[in-house]
């Protein structure tokens, strides 16, 4: 921008300062309104709130995740449904930019400081909209005994070479009790897995019920 007209420049700079502030304020207001609705005692208000979460979008991701483990069962459920609403909204065609931001926020929720139920749910959200940037943090959970099966299934669903490579690498590193699971994911992705046969048809569970003689 030319500085030959300082007055124009300063007006422009001032406008640049004001507009983002207005946008941030509006965004914060939308999030606050959403969260108030999610926490409401009235089931209809909570429902209306979570159904509107898609339009609020990425700024609501972390606030909703925080409430997903609320001790009030229905409040927690509303928060979870609100987060899913965002995922389904940004997954629509021609919303790549919105989706990218939400994926970024979801990836941050895979960190150790988040409760297991939140991370498990976030994994499945990423199974629908996650891209190759999500693969590495998801793959890191393959060594977490509580989350590894979900992480495996999610990598199985995310298309592309990065997810496939992560599964192949995981097979090499996996403990014996998880190798067959990963082998199945690789087979589902069209890979041959010599030496690790499919055990889907081997019965494993006995019954205590006896036949009548």
């Amino acid at each position, binding site marked *: 921008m030319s500085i030959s007209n300082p007055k124009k420049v300063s007006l422009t700079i001032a406008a640049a300062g004001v507009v983002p502030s207005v946008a941030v304020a509006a965004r914060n207001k939308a999030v606050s309104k959403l969260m108030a609705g999610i926490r409401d005692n009235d089931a209809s208000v909570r429902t209306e709130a979570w159904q509107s979460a898609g339009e609020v979008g990425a700024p609501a991701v972390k606030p909703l995740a925080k409430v997903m483990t609320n001790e009030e*069962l229905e409040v927690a459920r509303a928060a979870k449904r609100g987060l899913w609403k965002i995922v*389904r909204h940004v997954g629509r065609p021609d919303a790549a930019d919105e989706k990218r931001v939400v994926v970024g926020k979801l990836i941050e929720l895979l960190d150790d400081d988040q409760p297991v139920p939140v991370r498990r749910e976030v994994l499945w959200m990423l*199974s629908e909209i996650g891209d190759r940037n999500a693969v590495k943090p998801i793959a890191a959970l393959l060594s977490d005994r509580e989350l590894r*099966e979900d992480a*495996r299934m*999610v990598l199985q669903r995310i298309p592309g070479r990065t997810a496939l490579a992560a599964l192949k690498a995981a097979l090499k590193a996996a403990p014996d009790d998880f190798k067959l699971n990963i082998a199945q994911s690789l087979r589902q992705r069209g890979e041959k897995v010599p030496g690790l046969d499919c055990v889907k048809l081997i*019965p494993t*569970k006995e019954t205590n*019920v006896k036949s*009548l003689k």
Partner: protein
Amino acid sequence: MKRIKKINRREFLAAAGAAVSVPYLIPSSVLAAPGRTGANEKLTMAHIGVGGMGGYHLGDMVARRDRGEVNIAAVCDADEKRLAGAVKTVGHDVEAYRDYRYILHRNDIDAVVIATPDHWHGVQMVHAAQCGKHVYVEKPACCTIEEGKAMVAAAKDNKVSVQVGSQGRSQPEAYLAHRYLVNGNIGHIDKVNCFHYNSPEDSNPVPDSEPPAELDWDLWLGPLRWRPYNQRYCHGVFRWLMESGGGQIRDRGAHVMSCAMWWMGADGTGPVTVEATGTSPTKGLWDSAVTMDVTYTFKNPDWVLTWNQHTGNAVPAEERTGNEPGGKISRPGYGAVYHGSKGKFVHWGGDGGTWVEKKARQWELPAGAKDVYKSPGHKEDWFNGIKTGAKTIMNIEAAVGVANLCVLGNLSYILGRKLEWDQAKQEIVGDRQAQRMMYRPQRHPYHL
């Protein structure tokens, strides 16, 4: 009668050669073999899932056994109370299993009836077919598009006869409706409006808890991703979970839309667009749409199918004496209205109760008119398919086509947007998220 082969897991593994040489670790004696049960040979059945509709099927099969028509070799359930009850129902000479895979290994069993919750239908049907068993599987056939494809392939590759439990097609009045419509009595039909009442909301949500001692929760969940047990998942109420029963559109839609697809001559076809709206439950675990409206547009020929799920909407009625082929209309709250160029036609039900308007019941087939297939009964039609290789009235291809309508309707509702469908490629067009949701990864080892 074939010798009953009893085997436990240790013996199974020894027979399979627990070393890693066979891809699916199935003994060769179990693998599907060509050839069919002789016309006069009694079929030996097993039942997988013996609660709810499973209990109905078991009772029906016991009656057939008592008439000397079939043998019943085994019953199976993940709930040991239900399993014990089933053993009492059948009486002597029946083995009980918790794990259905023992049944699939048995050479003496010809066919299985699968009446487990919907999320198991695809996996168990495919496994049964891969082990050479003919299959009767409850509707809806599949929970995802990919499951449906796998089921069709498994039936074809393994040459087994499959009947899906949309028994409306086999009801006496369904035959009357079919021949009435196919002979142009209401002219060219360009719209079929299916009506149904709401899906229920969970009025009694409870926290997660430990499963009851008799229930194998891991086995009940099967292919679904892990979650703690909650009383509101089972039994029977799996119908209202989107990932299992999928709500009324899948539970009854699989019946009502089955009739529509059949009478419209639309088996093997699919819509080009699907658009759904609906209302959600306001609380509780159940997440299927309470009210719902779905529009399916078909091309070549052009027609529209709708699913309208609203309690309180006016539904057509008909007075009956009880002497009609289907008797009195005991369930008038769901059915469909067919709109033709020369008039309308109504049917109610579409499942074990299918009732059609008087004008169709009373219509006589004139000389030269087209008659249609009349099912001898849904199980009888299946037995005939097993013995002769004839396609069943609700074969897996047709059933998957109907289930896909339900699946797509729910997907459009969940995503909040219209979907485009390519029937030839069997895939959703232009929506990557929806494409990923055509398939659902399954928990090891309960997978296709």
